């Protein structure tokens, strides 16, 4: 089992989710995050002050999935989350030692 963490643009979440669902990803967990990277931040104006922020709104998707699904999932994300501009985000892959479904106590791949 692996865990995929992917940082993407918020407005593409829906498309990514739907495409992942189609290849058999049954669950995922999503978090609102702020990303700092190559993409330039923006400037806000409030009366005499300007605020520049380097932290831009992103969405983090976390998916735990069997090893054999990993490459397919990566493909899907690369395809659906790409705009070709700075800030498209990342995919990180991590090892998972165990997964357990709370409802049933099932462990391992059948739990995800």
């Amino acid at each position, binding site marked *: 089992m692996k865990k995929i963490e992917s940082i993407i*643009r918020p407005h593409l979440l829906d498309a990514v989710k739907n495409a992942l669902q189609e290849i058999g990803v049954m669950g995922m967990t999503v978090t609102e995050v702020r990303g700092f990277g190559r993409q330039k931040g923006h*400037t*806000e104006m*409030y009366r005499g002050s300007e*605020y*520049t922020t380097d*932290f831009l*709104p992103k969405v983090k998707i976390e998916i735990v999935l069997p090893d054999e699904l990993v490459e397919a999932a990566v493909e899907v994300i690369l395809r659906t989350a790409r705009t070709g501009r700075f800030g498209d985000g990342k995919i990180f892959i991590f090892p998972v030692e165990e997964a357990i479904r709370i409802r049933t106590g099932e462990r391992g791949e059948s739990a995800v």
Partner: protein
Amino acid sequence: MRGLHRRWSREVLWGIGLLSLMGPTVWAQATSAPTVDAGDTAWVLTASALVMLMTAPGLALFYGGLVSQRNVLSTLMHSFFLLCLISVQWVVLGYSLSFGPDLGGIIGRLTYWGLKGVGGEPNAGMNVPHLAFVMFQGMFAVITVALITGTFVERIRFTAFVLFAVMWATLVYDPLAHWVWGGGWLGKLGALDFAGGTVVHISSGVSALVAALVIGRRRGYPEKVLPPHNLPLTILGAALLWFGWFGFNAGSALAANGLAATAFTVTHAAAAMAGLMWAFIEWKHRGKPTVLGTATGSVAGLVAITPASGYVSTLSALAIGIGAGVIGYWGVNILKPRLGYDDSLDVFGVHGLCGTWGALATGLFASRAVNPLGADGALFGNPGQLLVQLIGVVATWVLAAAMTFLILKVVALVTPLRVTEEEEIAGLDLVLHGEVAYNFLSPGMGGTAHVPARSDAAVAPVRAEEPSRGG
């Protein structure tokens, strides 16, 4: 100017009529040389402030809560900026175009530009200062333009919005106000519109429909638009609209008298009934009554009673409210999805359709028993009034639709109407105004302030969120 304000002088006459029944002790309000009455003036000034409140914060919040978070400021800006813009247009030009000496039944002369010669003296045929009348009417102009903005939120460019607003106020609102209230042909025809069913609601609602068609749908509509971001703001806005509407309708008596109390009552009854109605339809039709539905219903009721508010009884008001609930619900929930236009905040469904219903219902339910100087409607033996109302409705639809189409086409020659798709994704608040509505983040995540030194005052235009830097 005497004789121009047909509608107002009616009410004054009505006052005289009633007063004569009450004996000679109450002659003070009935003198033919009008004087400023403190009570009437207190009410009209109060009503003017109430109508101002309808636009901002009332309508601003009603609309602002319904859009997505990234567009709330741009939506608030529409109403707030119009409060500034149209008010200036009004005192400079608009009032005179609407209520200046009549020019062929079509428009007012520029006699009163910049409110020259308009002061504290009583307005012709009324007991309130001329300037009080100017202000009261000016608030109507402001809100009418502001109502339209609900149709094109979340995508219109600010420059286009400003140009459209000034032209629409000058070319649609001012003439129409003149036609109906300023001594123009519709008023002379006998069309009844106590507080603005045609002038305010049909005109804004129909213009909104046309604007929705010309400007086009929001990206992703209908599948992918975001839900309302802050309904408590919307409910607050709706309640303030209701509150302000007492000024709108009861203030239109232009006096603190029995007619004002009548208008106040039927306004309240129709709003309450329509809110109930909408909620019950939802409950039956979709399983749950919603807060937004109830609030929307009460606004629909307020719209519908507006033209009728000086002419109908309380029971008729309940009937008008029921109609408004049904028609508004149908327009918003059935008609719009079926036709597929993106009138984003339902200006046409609520103001256009229910305004039309109200204008026609005035032709049904008006009764001289309520207001001896109004007219009887079809249900009280005078079907002709319904025809007159229909003429008023058709004229307003045609004027509003044609001019809105034209104005938008002209504006589009000068500047694009919409933001780009990328800007639409980033949100108008940041893209057009460089501001973000809410900063609920932890300190440190919300950006670093720097106060621009003098030299970098002419700062580079702010970048939108989505676009990356080149390369």
